């Protein structure tokens, strides 16, 4: 469905995407992870056939977006990072006009809108101006809108930002159902649990390049230990304690508020810490997650 070879995007003297290679198969849920400014959204906009690539090759649905942009876009569903509805129009009207942009018939849309409002659980808000919706509701409307043309590829740029936990779980379920129907999903997210839940395969990007690629479980296995011990010594003592325990486990990761110790057996490491005479205020042993992979690959310094 999507093939990118040495894909590059340059804005003036800034290289947003610097020669990346990936492939997405039909019916796959593909994730793009990375810190802010990694080039995820730019990559998304190139796949969505709106932003033209500077160089490299890109094929979407077997076509070249630089030449067949409109044909490709007619079969895509796009959920942009920023909700862009007409705030003066009602909820149903926003779905309607978007469907009309694709040239869909009025009768078809009448039924489709009922389904989409149901999907987004906005049935009761049907006749409300978008202006009056909460942030989460607007987000759900944007997601529903992306489905109006029954797209072959659904592009979701940070779909659950602003959603409450219930809405997030419901969305995951619905995206799963879409995938079962053969819809290809391309997702960017800052929530690692979401990526772990939804994505069959993902790439981790940083500074316009791909740092790692694989299934979530593979990446965890490759880049992290089995368990993680999280210890807090209090903000003033963390640095000092980190120095003392730096040789424990496979490696340690001092964060501003706590220290992560990567190890096969977290409890064992905790015992060793106690033996050294250190008393952490809190401690927690958990399984390694995608977040650990992300922190390791992209560094902990905040980009913005």
């Amino acid at each position: 469905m999507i093939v990118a070879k040495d894909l590059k995007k340059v804005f003036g003297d800034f290289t947003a995407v610097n020669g990346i290679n990936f492939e997405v198969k039909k019916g796959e849920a593909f994730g793009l992870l990375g810190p802010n400014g990694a080039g995820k959204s730019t990559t998304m906009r190139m796949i969505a056939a709106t932003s033209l690539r500077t160089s490299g090759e890109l094929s979407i649905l077997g076509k070249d977006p630089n030449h067949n942009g409109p044909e490709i876009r007619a079969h895509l569903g796009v959920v942009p990072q920023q909700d862009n509805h007409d705030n003066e129009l009602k909820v149903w009207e926003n779905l309607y006009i978007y469907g009309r942009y694709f040239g869909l018939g009025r009768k078809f849309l009448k039924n489709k809108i009922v389904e989409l409002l149901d999907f987004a659980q906005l049935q009761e808000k049907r006749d409300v101006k978008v202006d009056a919706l909460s942030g989460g509701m607007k987000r759900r409307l944007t997601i529903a809108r992306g489905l109006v043309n029954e797209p072959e590829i659904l592009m979701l740029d940070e779909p659950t930002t602003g959603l409450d936990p219930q809405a997030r779980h419901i969305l995951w379920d619905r995206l799963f159902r879409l995938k079962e129907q053969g819809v290809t999903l391309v997702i960017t997210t800052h929530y690692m649990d979401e990526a772990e839940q939804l994505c069959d395969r993902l790439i981790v990007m940083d500074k316009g390049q791909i740092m790692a690629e694989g299934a979530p479980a593979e990446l965890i296995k490759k880049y992290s230990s089995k368990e993680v011990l999280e210890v807090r010594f209090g903000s003033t003592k963390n640095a000092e304690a980190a120095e003392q325990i730096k040789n424990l486990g496979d490696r340690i990761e001092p964060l501003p508020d706590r220290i992560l110790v990567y190890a096969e057996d977290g409890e064992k490491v905790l015992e060793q810490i106690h033996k050294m005479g250190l008393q952490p205020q809190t401690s927690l042993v958990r399984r390694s997650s995608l977040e650990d992979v992300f922190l390791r690959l992209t560094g902990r310094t905040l980009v913005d």
Partner: protein
Amino acid sequence: MSVYTEPKMTWQGATKIVNLRKALTAGPWFVAEYRLRNMSKWWTAILAFGLGNPVLYLLSVGIGIGALVNKSQAHGVDGVPYLTFLAPALLATSAIQAAMDETSFPTMQGFMWDKSFFAMNATQLTGRVIVGGIMIASAARCIFNTLIYALVLWAFGAVAPASIPVLVASAILAGLGFAAIMLMTVSFIKQDDGFFAIVGRFIIAPMFMFSGTFYPITNLPIYLQWIGWVSPVWHATDIGRALSYGHAVTPGLMVIHYSYLLLMLVVGMTVGGRQFAKRLAA
């Protein structure tokens, strides 16, 4: 969104439900349909201004000042009553105002206020197609306002019914020509910093004052006449006067009038379309 319900979603897939040929060719009409729906939210304001503007104008300037002018000049102006002289200019100005409202603000809205152009561009609609759609909707509003204005002029006895079609047509040509130029200009604006106030004070107002609206342009000193030459108001007014009451215009000048207005339309839409596409693809 806390109660879980099983969603029912019929699914045939985009390849079946999207008619690619229709989607690629009828795009401007889809955009226009959206713009008209957006306008319909303001229909009371559109109607109130569309009707109130000409009525108040004709009462104050046309009839009030007109009475003085007609009294002091036995043969009116340009051989006709003042109101008849004034009518084509008023029509052209109202057409320009209406058409401009529906190109400049939507362009600002689409790129900056709610970014709706980016939503459109995520479908198969392109920058050029969006420009086409906005111009269609703008033409609809322009025709609506100009027709109302013409009817009010007729009710005040300023124009003969037979001259209404030509007057409306020349006014609309001016409206769309200027609207296209405005759309093009606004598409380059990256910051919302009072651009419209500047346009209103330094472009629309002088264009209205110095385009032979209230008196023949030749009454102006030559160093001010150029404002009329570049202004669509003067070109459309001269056409309207020639066609409605036989104001003397040489055929050559007539050709210049039409060409100038058409040129504004073509340049505005071409350059605007290019800039739309460029800005959306960034």
